[in-house]
Protein backbone atom coordinates (compact mmCIF):
# COMPACT_ATOMS: atom_id res chain seq x y z
CA UNK A 1 0.00 0.00 0.00
CA UNK A 2 1.27 3.45 -0.86
CA UNK A 3 0.50 4.95 2.49
CA UNK A 4 3.70 6.99 2.65
CA UNK A 5 2.53 9.33 -0.11
CA UNK A 6 -0.99 9.40 1.21
CA UNK A 7 0.35 10.20 4.65
CA UNK A 8 2.34 13.16 3.37
CA UNK A 9 -0.70 14.60 1.61
CA UNK A 10 -2.78 14.03 4.69
CA UNK A 11 -0.17 15.83 6.78
CA UNK A 12 -0.16 18.82 4.47
CA UNK A 13 -3.94 19.00 4.42
CA UNK A 14 -4.40 18.75 8.13
CA UNK A 15 -1.45 20.73 9.46
CA UNK A 16 -3.80 22.69 11.72
CA UNK A 17 -5.08 19.51 13.28
CA UNK A 18 -1.57 18.22 13.82
CA UNK A 19 -0.54 21.40 15.57
CA UNK A 20 -3.55 21.10 17.83
CA UNK A 21 -2.65 17.53 18.66
CA UNK A 22 0.90 18.59 19.50
CA UNK A 23 -0.51 21.24 21.83
CA UNK A 24 -2.56 18.63 23.65
CA UNK A 25 0.54 16.45 24.03
CA UNK A 26 2.46 19.33 25.48
CA UNK A 27 -0.01 19.98 28.25
CA UNK A 28 -0.72 16.40 29.22
CA UNK A 29 1.80 13.99 30.70
CA UNK A 30 0.18 11.12 28.82
CA UNK A 31 1.78 9.81 25.68
CA UNK A 32 -0.06 9.15 22.45
CA UNK A 33 1.51 7.20 19.62
CA UNK A 34 0.75 9.70 16.86
CA UNK A 35 2.58 7.77 14.13
CA UNK A 36 0.68 4.58 14.89
CA UNK A 37 -2.75 6.17 15.25
CA UNK A 38 -2.39 8.30 12.14
CA UNK A 39 -1.18 5.45 9.94
CA UNK A 40 -3.53 4.70 7.05
CA UNK A 41 -2.43 1.14 6.46
CA UNK A 42 -2.42 -1.80 8.83
CA UNK A 43 1.24 -2.59 8.12
CA UNK A 44 2.29 0.99 8.90
CA UNK A 45 0.33 1.05 12.14
CA UNK A 46 1.91 -2.24 13.22
CA UNK A 47 5.36 -0.95 12.30
CA UNK A 48 4.79 2.20 14.36
CA UNK A 49 3.77 0.02 17.30
CA UNK A 50 6.87 -2.13 16.85
CA UNK A 51 4.58 -5.07 16.15
CA UNK A 52 5.51 -5.98 12.59
CA UNK A 53 6.26 -9.53 13.59
CA UNK A 54 3.65 -11.28 15.67
CA UNK A 55 3.00 -14.93 16.36
CA UNK A 56 -0.21 -16.70 17.23
CA UNK A 57 -0.74 -17.39 20.91
CA UNK A 58 -3.21 -17.48 23.73
CA UNK A 59 -5.01 -14.32 22.77
CA UNK A 60 -8.65 -14.32 21.78
CA UNK A 61 -11.68 -12.22 21.08
CA UNK A 62 -14.53 -12.58 23.55
CA UNK A 63 -17.99 -11.06 23.50
CA UNK A 64 -17.29 -9.90 19.97
CA UNK A 65 -19.96 -10.39 17.28
CA UNK A 66 -19.50 -12.12 13.90
CA UNK A 67 -21.91 -9.65 12.39
CA UNK A 68 -22.32 -6.05 13.54
CA UNK A 69 -25.60 -4.51 12.48
CA UNK A 70 -24.39 -1.05 13.43
CA UNK A 71 -20.77 -0.27 12.54
CA UNK A 72 -20.86 2.77 14.83
CA UNK A 73 -20.98 0.59 17.93
CA UNK A 74 -19.19 -2.75 17.67
CA UNK A 75 -18.41 -4.44 20.98
CA UNK A 76 -14.87 -5.81 21.12
CA UNK A 77 -13.46 -7.88 23.95
CA UNK A 78 -9.88 -9.13 23.99
CA UNK A 79 -8.38 -11.56 26.47
CA UNK A 80 -4.75 -12.64 26.61
CA UNK A 81 -3.67 -15.63 28.68
CA UNK A 82 -0.02 -15.07 27.77
CA UNK A 83 1.92 -14.54 31.01
CA UNK A 84 3.39 -11.07 31.33
CA UNK A 85 1.04 -9.42 28.84
CA UNK A 86 1.62 -5.70 29.34
CA UNK A 87 -0.16 -4.22 26.34
CA UNK A 88 -3.17 -5.00 24.16
CA UNK A 89 -3.91 -3.21 20.89
CA UNK A 90 -6.98 -3.37 18.64
CA UNK A 91 -6.63 -2.71 14.90
CA UNK A 92 -9.34 -2.64 12.25
CA UNK A 93 -7.78 -3.28 8.86
CA UNK A 94 -10.24 -1.42 6.65
CA UNK A 95 -10.80 1.65 8.80
CA UNK A 96 -9.29 4.94 7.54
CA UNK A 97 -6.86 4.71 10.46
CA UNK A 98 -6.55 1.04 11.41
CA UNK A 99 -5.30 1.47 14.98
CA UNK A 100 -8.30 1.89 17.30
CA UNK A 101 -6.86 1.54 20.79
CA UNK A 102 -3.84 0.55 22.84
CA UNK A 103 -4.26 -0.52 26.47
CA UNK A 104 -1.32 -0.68 28.86
CA UNK A 105 -1.84 -3.47 31.36
CA UNK A 106 0.13 -3.05 34.59
CA UNK A 107 0.94 -6.04 36.80
CA UNK A 108 -2.14 -6.92 38.84
CA UNK A 109 -4.57 -6.01 36.07
CA UNK A 110 -6.17 -8.78 34.02
CA UNK A 111 -5.06 -8.79 30.38
CA UNK A 112 -8.70 -8.61 29.37
CA UNK A 113 -10.52 -5.52 28.21
CA UNK A 114 -13.85 -4.76 26.64
CA UNK A 115 -14.73 -1.66 24.66
CA UNK A 116 -16.78 -0.52 21.65
CA UNK A 117 -15.41 0.65 18.32
CA UNK A 118 -16.52 2.07 15.00
CA UNK A 119 -16.08 0.07 11.81
CA UNK A 120 -16.36 1.67 8.38
CA UNK A 121 -17.09 -1.65 6.67
CA UNK A 122 -16.67 -5.40 6.95
CA UNK A 123 -13.06 -6.01 7.94
CA UNK A 124 -10.56 -8.20 9.65
CA UNK A 125 -9.95 -7.04 13.20
CA UNK A 126 -6.60 -7.72 14.85
CA UNK A 127 -5.86 -8.01 18.54
CA UNK A 128 -2.20 -7.72 19.45
CA UNK A 129 -0.81 -8.62 22.86
CA UNK A 130 2.71 -7.75 23.93
CA UNK A 131 4.44 -10.00 26.44
CA UNK A 132 8.15 -10.12 27.17
CA UNK A 133 8.74 -7.73 24.29
CA UNK A 134 7.14 -10.11 21.76
CA UNK A 135 3.84 -9.62 20.02
CA UNK A 136 1.06 -12.18 19.67
CA UNK A 137 -1.90 -11.77 17.36
CA UNK A 138 -5.47 -12.93 16.97
CA UNK A 139 -7.66 -12.14 13.96
CA UNK A 140 -11.41 -12.10 13.50
CA UNK A 141 -13.52 -10.98 10.59
CA UNK A 142 -16.48 -8.88 11.61
CA UNK A 143 -19.17 -8.27 9.02
CA UNK A 144 -20.73 -4.84 9.11
CA UNK A 145 -24.16 -4.28 7.62
CA UNK A 146 -24.24 -0.51 8.29
CA UNK A 147 -20.95 1.39 8.35
CA UNK A 148 -19.99 3.60 11.27
CA UNK A 149 -17.62 6.14 9.79
CA UNK A 150 -19.61 7.54 6.87
CA UNK A 151 -20.62 11.15 6.42
Amino acid sequence: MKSGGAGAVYAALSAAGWLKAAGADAQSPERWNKDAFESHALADARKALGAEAAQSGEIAFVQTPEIAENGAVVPIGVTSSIPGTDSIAILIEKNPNPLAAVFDIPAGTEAAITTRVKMAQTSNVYALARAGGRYYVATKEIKVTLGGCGG
Partner: protein
Amino acid sequence: MGDPMKIRAAIVGDETEVKVLMSHEMETGQRKNAKGQVIPAWFIQNVTVVWKDKTVLSAQWGTAVSKNPFLSFRFKGGAKGDKVIVTWVDNRGDRRTDEALIA
Protein backbone atom coordinates in the same frame (compact mmCIF):
# COMPACT_ATOMS: atom_id res chain seq x y z
CA MET B 1 -14.98 19.49 30.70
CA GLY B 2 -17.65 17.27 29.20
CA ASP B 3 -20.42 15.55 31.09
CA PRO B 4 -19.74 13.23 34.03
CA MET B 5 -18.71 9.65 33.43
CA LYS B 6 -20.73 6.77 34.77
CA ILE B 7 -18.34 4.53 36.68
CA ARG B 8 -19.21 1.26 38.37
CA ALA B 9 -16.67 -0.68 40.37
CA ALA B 10 -17.66 -3.93 42.02
CA ILE B 11 -15.85 -6.77 43.72
CA VAL B 12 -15.88 -10.04 41.79
CA GLY B 13 -14.03 -12.77 43.67
CA ASP B 14 -10.57 -11.39 44.51
CA GLU B 15 -10.77 -8.79 41.79
CA THR B 16 -12.45 -5.47 41.18
CA GLU B 17 -14.43 -5.12 37.98
CA VAL B 18 -14.54 -1.58 36.61
CA LYS B 19 -17.04 -0.41 34.01
CA VAL B 20 -16.89 3.12 32.64
CA LEU B 21 -19.23 4.94 30.30
CA MET B 22 -17.84 8.29 29.15
CA SER B 23 -19.67 11.12 27.49
CA HIS B 24 -17.78 12.28 24.38
CA GLU B 25 -18.56 12.90 20.71
CA MET B 26 -15.52 10.93 19.45
CA GLU B 27 -15.75 12.76 16.13
CA THR B 28 -13.64 10.91 13.55
CA GLY B 29 -12.56 13.77 11.31
CA GLN B 30 -13.91 11.72 8.38
CA ARG B 31 -17.39 13.18 8.31
CA LYS B 32 -18.56 16.28 6.48
CA ASN B 33 -21.25 18.74 7.46
CA ALA B 34 -24.15 19.86 5.23
CA LYS B 35 -21.86 22.40 3.52
CA GLY B 36 -19.38 19.71 2.61
CA GLN B 37 -16.79 20.89 5.14
CA VAL B 38 -14.88 18.28 7.12
CA ILE B 39 -15.93 18.13 10.76
CA PRO B 40 -12.61 18.21 12.65
CA ALA B 41 -11.58 15.17 14.63
CA TRP B 42 -12.41 15.47 18.32
CA PHE B 43 -11.73 12.42 20.42
CA ILE B 44 -10.36 11.09 23.67
CA GLN B 45 -6.67 10.22 23.31
CA ASN B 46 -5.75 9.07 26.80
CA VAL B 47 -7.56 7.33 29.61
CA THR B 48 -6.10 6.43 32.99
CA VAL B 49 -7.69 4.54 35.86
CA VAL B 50 -6.15 4.89 39.31
CA TRP B 51 -6.80 2.93 42.50
CA LYS B 52 -4.86 3.75 45.67
CA ASP B 53 -2.33 5.93 43.81
CA LYS B 54 -1.62 3.04 41.44
CA THR B 55 -2.47 3.17 37.77
CA VAL B 56 -4.48 0.02 37.13
CA LEU B 57 -5.10 0.73 33.45
CA SER B 58 -4.00 3.31 30.92
CA ALA B 59 -5.12 3.54 27.34
CA GLN B 60 -4.40 5.44 24.16
CA TRP B 61 -7.36 5.79 21.85
CA GLY B 62 -7.83 6.77 18.24
CA THR B 63 -10.91 8.07 16.46
CA ALA B 64 -12.34 4.56 16.01
CA VAL B 65 -13.49 4.22 19.60
CA SER B 66 -17.26 4.67 19.60
CA LYS B 67 -19.12 7.81 20.62
CA ASN B 68 -19.73 7.82 24.38
CA PRO B 69 -16.96 5.29 24.96
CA PHE B 70 -17.39 2.18 27.06
CA LEU B 71 -14.58 0.39 28.84
CA SER B 72 -14.48 -2.53 31.22
CA PHE B 73 -11.65 -4.47 32.85
CA ARG B 74 -10.62 -6.11 36.15
CA PHE B 75 -7.73 -5.64 38.52
CA LYS B 76 -6.58 -7.68 41.49
CA GLY B 77 -7.39 -6.33 44.93
CA GLY B 78 -9.72 -3.53 45.88
CA ALA B 79 -11.99 -3.33 48.90
CA LYS B 80 -15.47 -2.03 49.37
CA GLY B 81 -15.37 1.75 49.69
CA ASP B 82 -11.99 2.21 47.91
CA LYS B 83 -11.92 4.99 45.36
CA VAL B 84 -11.45 4.31 41.66
CA ILE B 85 -10.52 7.45 39.73
CA VAL B 86 -10.88 7.73 35.95
CA THR B 87 -9.41 10.55 33.86
CA TRP B 88 -9.64 11.18 30.13
CA VAL B 89 -7.83 13.75 27.99
CA ASP B 90 -8.96 14.57 24.46
CA ASN B 91 -7.10 15.89 21.41
CA ARG B 92 -8.11 19.45 22.28
CA GLY B 93 -6.41 19.11 25.64
CA ASP B 94 -9.77 19.03 27.43
CA ARG B 95 -9.89 16.63 30.34
CA ARG B 96 -12.32 15.21 32.84
CA THR B 97 -11.85 13.22 36.04
CA ASP B 98 -14.55 11.31 37.90
CA GLU B 99 -14.46 8.78 40.68
CA ALA B 100 -16.55 6.01 42.16
CA LEU B 101 -16.40 3.90 45.29
CA ILE B 102 -16.01 0.15 44.95
CA ALA B 103 -19.33 -1.49 45.84
